[in-house]
């Protein structure tokens, strides 16, 4: 009977014990005898033709076994997580496009020899003009970074009569906002190890998407997918940065071509230099409201620097555009988001895919409109908030799971309590600010299914097979809870096989806050089918109609508790003795957006959230302290409450970093000594509030929370700062210099 309390419960996570004991082996901890150690030689120039790569001096280093360049890549030397824009070579061919691009791979008997070999690779470059500014990249006559030009992708959303909206507005606000390049800075740098096993290349790695890894490794090596097995190891955070391939192609190539095991672990410096970043945005916003604060029109032009390669640029452009006007009823919009190539390290996915950047824009605009009209910032959000049955800017009619007003109310209560503590006679500027968001769960405007399998083993225990990568956020735990609840067993009775392309079906990426909703949906269906089959089998054994039977605590018997029951082991034996398994899938109801207008149904469901921040500013140093953060999130249904709280707290911390400190300078920031991320001293105790507006298509009503957690934080902090300083900061992060300016009453 206890099984019924699994969903919504708070049991300790299964992986926690091994992790606190230090027993969990991450990819860098895997020990394989006879390893080749790898090092990558990288470009020190931002844009150049490669005339020649000289490897003889590297090969001469004692201990160096092989040196690989582009010409050794057996398959198609081009990868990318979105197939239609895949454009990144694993080793540069005739061109390098950013400082840090891989040019050669050295395999050696020791890490020292590999590193020395990499240092001795000499490249003959013919320099090309390097472009570092996306606006410049779009100018006529700018050097083309790729043959298809410098515009990587453009998404437009057009709806309603924008000009009429502006014509009858009581208030119009027009501003430009900028955000910074941000590094994921997961604590575990990229790592992979590979070996050959019965003719199959095995790659164990830190990843958010083992099935994608396998398919692109297959293309790079020119090998059928069946010859490659990718296993996701415990992964030390991802936040979008481990969706792209990083180290995997190098171990795969070295092992495939030499037959020997190999390992590559990035140093933090290499992780900073060579892996994807959050897109920096320049955003011009124009927003109009009537006298009561109702939005009439929003015009937004977003320009994002995608760096040297496409990675997730297409998805970022689409998602930023769809969410650019915020979680509000807006009758007319003209939105454009362009992602543009430059000669900077590539930008890819990072928690929110452009939505956090856009939220800084739309939430600053909401406060400015509120100020212009003399309306309370919460009130203007409430009167525009999307509700059940409302229509979004893409023309999608929302269902019932729209908890934004509830989130605003929860946050409003905290804000009012905090407001009483604001006025202290110490001359310290203090302020409160709110931010709100909505976020589509799953990939934008495309099918993105997940498949799961659940088996009853001969011993009466179950095994759940899922390809969903748990990168620390706790999807294992959520999927086990969904499975256990459906099967009426304790989760401890369920074995888990996860993230192994040889044993699990494709669950799609751990991204877009999609695994609980989509893979959870797949698990729900697989477990439901299995339950049905087992109950039918038991019905025959017991001679009782299936409708009267229930599966509870490992036995199937009459739901009313009368009469005899059978154990699952007996049912398994009746089914032939082998494992009995069922497969289930779920694909959210999403459809492609119209190319010209962006109209359509991009997502099956949306999460909603509002946060309030309380800040104080040291009048002498301009140092900002976030004294309080309260975050209300409509997650549909919390499958595991502590995990949801952990996501909210962790997301808010990352949002705080985006607001106040994080900005990656290529060439300047090589490690965590200069690139600062929030510490225990920066992040206040986060007050999380869970709102549960059940989503009918979600497992037990669940939606998602991973990315939403971060999105309203920077807007709330920046709005609080504007309230504290009396002037607004339009550029992230809010550095000391910018805050000093704001304290002087200047816009920054």
């Amino acid at each position: 009977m206890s099984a019924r309390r699994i969903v919504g419960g708070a049991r300790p996570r299964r992986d926690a014990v091994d992790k606190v004991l230090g027993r969990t082996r991450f990819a860098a901890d895997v020990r394989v005898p006879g390893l080749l150690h790898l090092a990558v030689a990288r470009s020190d120039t931002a844009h150049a033709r490669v005339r020649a790569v000289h490897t003889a001096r590297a090969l001469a280093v004692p201990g160096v076994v092989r040196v690989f360049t582009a010409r050794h890549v057996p398959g198609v030397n081009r990868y990318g997580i979105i197939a239609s824009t895949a454009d990144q070579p694993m080793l540069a061919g005739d061109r390098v496009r950013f400082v840090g691009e891989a040019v050669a791979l050295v395999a050696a008997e020791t890490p020292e020899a590999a590193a020395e070999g990499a240092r001795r690779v000499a490249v003959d470059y013919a320099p090309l003009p390097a472009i570092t500014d996306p606006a410049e990249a779009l100018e006529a006559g700018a050097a083309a970074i790729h043959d298809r030009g410098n515009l990587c992708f453009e998404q437009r959303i057009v709806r309603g009569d924008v000009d009429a909206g502006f014509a009858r507005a009581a208030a119009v606000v027009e501003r430009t906002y900028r955000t910074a390049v941000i590094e994921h800075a997961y604590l575990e740098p990229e790592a992979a190890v590979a070996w050959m096993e019965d003719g199959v290349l095995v790659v164990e790695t830190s990843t958010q998407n083992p099935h994608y890894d396998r398919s692109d490794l297959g293309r790079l090596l020119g090998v059928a997918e069946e010859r490659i097995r990718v296993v996701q190891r415990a992964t030390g955070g991802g936040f979008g940065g481990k969706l792209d391939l990083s180290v995997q192609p190098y171990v795969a190539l070295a092992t495939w071509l030499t037959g020997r095991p190999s390992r590559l672990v990035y140093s933090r410096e290499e992780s900073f230099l060579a892996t994807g970043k959050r897109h920096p945005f320049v955003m011009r916003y124009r927003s109009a409201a009537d006298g009561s604060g109702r939005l009439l029109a929003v015009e937004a032009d977003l320009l994002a620097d995608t760096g040297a390669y496409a990675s997730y640029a297409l998805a970022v452009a689409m998602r930023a555009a769809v969410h650019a006007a915020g979680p509000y009823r807006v009758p007319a919009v003209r939105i454009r988001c362009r992602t543009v190539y430059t000669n900077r390290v590539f930008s890819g996915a990072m928690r929110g895919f452009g939505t956090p950047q856009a939220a800084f824009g739309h939430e600053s605009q909401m406060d400015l409109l509120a100020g212009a009209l003399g309306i309370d910032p919460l009130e203007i959000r409430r009167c525009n908030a999307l509700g059940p049955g409302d229509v979004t800017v893409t023309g999608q009619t929302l269902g019932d799971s729209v908890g934004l007003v509830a989130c605003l109310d929860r946050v409003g209560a905290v804000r009012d309590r905090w407001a009483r503590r604001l006025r202290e006679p110490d001359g310290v500027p203090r302020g409160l600010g709110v931010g709100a968001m909505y976020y589509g769960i799953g990939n934008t405007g495309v099918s993105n299914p997940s498949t799961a399998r659940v088996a009853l083993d001969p011993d009466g225990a179950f095994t759940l097979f899922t390809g969903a990568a748990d990168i620390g956020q706790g999807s294992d735990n959520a999927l086990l809870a969904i499975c256990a609840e459906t099967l009426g067993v304790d989760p401890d009775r369920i074995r888990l096989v996860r993230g192994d392309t040889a044993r699990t079906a494709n669950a799609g990426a751990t991204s877009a806050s999609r695994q609980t909703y989509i893979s959870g949906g797949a698990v729900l269906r697989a477990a439901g089918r299995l339950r049905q089959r087992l109950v039918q089998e038991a019905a025959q054994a017991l001679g009782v109609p299936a409708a009267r039977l229930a599966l509870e605590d490992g036995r199937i018997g009459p739901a009313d508790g009368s009469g005899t029951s059978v154990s699952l082991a007996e049912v398994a034996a009746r089914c032939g003795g082998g494992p009995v398994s069922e497969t289930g899938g779920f694909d959210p109801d999403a459809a492609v957006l119209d190319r010209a207008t962006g109209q359509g149904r991009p997502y099956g469901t949306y999460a909603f959230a509002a946060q309030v921040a309380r800040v104080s500013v040291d009048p002498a140093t301009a140092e900002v302290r976030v004294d309080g953060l309260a975050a209300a999130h409509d997650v549909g249904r919390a499958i595991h409450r502590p995990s949801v709280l952990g996501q909210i707290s962790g997301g808010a911390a990352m949002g705080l970093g985006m607001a106040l400190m994080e900005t990656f300078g290529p060439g300047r920031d090589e490690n965590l000594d200069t690139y600062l991320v929030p510490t225990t001293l920066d992040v206040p105790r986060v007050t999380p509030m869970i709102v549960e507006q059940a989503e009918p298509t979600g497992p037990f009503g669940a939606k998602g929370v991973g990315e939403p957690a971060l999105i309203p934080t920077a807007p709330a902090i920046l709005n609080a700062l504007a309230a504290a300083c009396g002037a607004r900061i339009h550029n992230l992060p809010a550095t000391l210099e910018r805050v000093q300016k704001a304290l002087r009453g200047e816009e920054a």
Partner: protein
Amino acid sequence: MPVDAAPVVELSFTLNGEPVTVSVEPHRSLLWVLRERFDLTGTKEGCGVGECGACTVLLDGRAVNACLVLAPKAAGREVLTVEGLGGPDALHPLQRAFVDGHAVQCGYCTPGMLLSAAALLQDNPRPTRDEIRAALAGNLCRCTGYTQIVDAVYAASRARGWAP
């Protein structure tokens, strides 16, 4: 064969309560020795420059960044890693509190966090939350936002029967 083969030194110290001896090149870090020579991979490398705290171990009871400690510095001293903190059947109260308090997400920062917290509780068995935050300031976590970690350390310090 290392390119710049250095002479090795013989090094004896106490590792998780056991006396050990190992020959290493003197430029090696304690982190490298623990991971590569003793296969104690619970101690993590996150930055290699003393900024993240993932490599935190206790050296004579004090929390240090093992990536910054040259191996010879451990000679004759006591080193405690996460593997020596508790066992599967006898979790250290901090480990118990991290599990029960959901203070573990990806787990990469966890060993370092536990050892910094253990050092704190040795000196200050009943710390305030602010004292906990100060003691963990050198340990980065990118997943949790620290809320559940600070709460777990607090809970461990208040747990009945707990004596550091």
